[in-house]
């Protein structure tokens, strides 16, 4: 019985892991198109191109499997999986509704942040194994960016954990109160911006920089491996939106939380995904020095200040 339950929970998470990024990806096509005054995909599937990503998936699957001659084969082949797997593991710990979580963990937040750090390894693996100087440049930029932005991410998460008094994600959502929106607002913004930088989305896509570095650490990837990297990008959007929702926006809180909690979570996740897409369309890419400056001179001090504020208010209450 228990085994069956475990399999069911993991299966549901895998379904969410595969479906939500496709929805976000299709939304990105259409939202980005309309924000740029055009229409986006209209043909695939007949009705406003809803099957565009399915068609893309089929296209990637039927492509030739190429590994560059000078590349380190094992590492090259493992990199997409290393990029994708941490997000699946993170989704296991995220609560959707009251008592609706695949695996409630007492150190949930710590676990999630630790696993997210594995993404850096995937970037370095793909960059180094590609045997291509543009990939390597992209990868090194990526490593600097990801390592740098881990710090504000962790500090902002520490602030909310301190406010809730627990590291368990369901526990944090349960302890959340609406006035925390104001109290933790700086941490929310820092976490969100650092999260967007962690998933290497524009305006933080220096490692990819497709007009400067060909495609950065993804240059040599094609076919199904490239599709996995793309899936990882969209899963990353879902994961960061889900984490920001669960930590700072109160997750399943809303009218009728017992019946509709999962709906509020999903609505908040999609709203944040929309904001991430909106940021991509609006802002030009940050240069490396601007990026590092933003991280170390703006986000880290704000996160530290928020920690002080949180501690002060916690002691006062």
């Amino acid at each position, binding site marked *: 019985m228990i085994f069956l339950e475990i399999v069911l929970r993991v299966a549901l998470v895998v379904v969410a892991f595969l479906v939500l990024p496709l929805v976000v990806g299709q939304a990105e096509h259409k939202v980005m*198109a309309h924000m740029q*005054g055009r229409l986006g995909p209209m043909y695939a599937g007949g009705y406003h191109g809803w099957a565009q990503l399915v068609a893309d998936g089929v296209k990637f699957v039927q492509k030739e499997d190429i590994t560059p001659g000078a590349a380190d084969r094992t590492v090259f082949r493992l990199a997409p999986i290393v990029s994708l797997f941490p997000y699946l593991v993170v989704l296991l710990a995220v609560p959707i509704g009251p008592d609706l979580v695949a695996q409630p963990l007492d150190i949930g937040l710590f676990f999630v942040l630790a696993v997210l750090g594995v993404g850096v390894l995937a970037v370095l693996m793909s960059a180094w194994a590609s045997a291509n100087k543009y990939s390597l440049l992209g990868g090194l930029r990526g490593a600097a960016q990801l390592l740098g932005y881990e710090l504000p991410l962790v500090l902002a998460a520490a602030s909310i954990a301190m406010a809730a008094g627990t590291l368990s994600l369901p526990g944090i959502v349960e302890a959340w109160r609406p006035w925390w929106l104001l109290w933790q607002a700086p941490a929310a913004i820092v976490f969100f911006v650092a999260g967007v930088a962690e998933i290497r989305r524009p305006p933080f896509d220096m490692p990819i920089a497709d007009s400067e570095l060909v495609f950065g650490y993804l240059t040599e990837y094609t076919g199904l491996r490239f599709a996995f990297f793309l899936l990882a990008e969209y899963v990353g959007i879902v994961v960061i939106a889900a984490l920001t929702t669960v930590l700072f926006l109160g997750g399943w809180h809303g009218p009728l939380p017992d019946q509709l909690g999962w709906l509020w979570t999903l609505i908040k996740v999609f709203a944040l995904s929309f904001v991430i897409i909106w940021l991509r369309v609006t*802002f030009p890419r940050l240069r490396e020095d601007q990026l590092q400056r933003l991280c170390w001179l703006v986000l880290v001090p704000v996160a530290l200040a928020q920690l002080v504020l949180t501690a002060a208010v916690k002691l006062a209450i």
Partner: protein
Amino acid sequence: MTDDGERATPGKGLVQGLAVTLKTMTQRSTTRQYPDVEPDLPPRSRGVIALLEENCTVCMLCARECPDWCIYIDSHKEEVVVPGAARARQRNVLDKFDIDFSLCMYCGICIEVCPFDALHWTPEFEYAETDVLNLLHDKDRLGDWMRTVPAPPAHDVLGEPSKEESTAARKAAGPGAATQARTNVRRPEPEK
């Protein structure tokens, strides 16, 4: 930073950018999906050139004036016997009139220069070929395009009256009458 040296509030530009993209998203896009919807071409659009063979007197002005030399013309002279005339008249008969659209640059000089209105613009543009040799349209094909030549657009109401209109008006008014050139009404000066 604004031009007068004042510092804007930090983040103001970022928020304005976000507002612009959001506004564009809510407005209906003007994209017309071409193969399903025909494009709205403006009047006098230049697509392909049509030949009205009966007007052509083979004066060769178009072939000479074409900057790309893309018009190829062949002709021969024929005698036409006119009853009651001293000798037979000669007329040019057009044998070959080809326009090479792989060279044509759509400047319209041939159409402007033709004194007999034998060449016309039409707005047809869907004549792409897989073989570049098929872009040489011969006399018959050019004659076929005449079906697609639109009627000339109406004159601009606020524009200068055409030569024919002003001459007719002058003649109808009789000698010494007040014409446009002779009245004191202030009018925008035409380009001399």
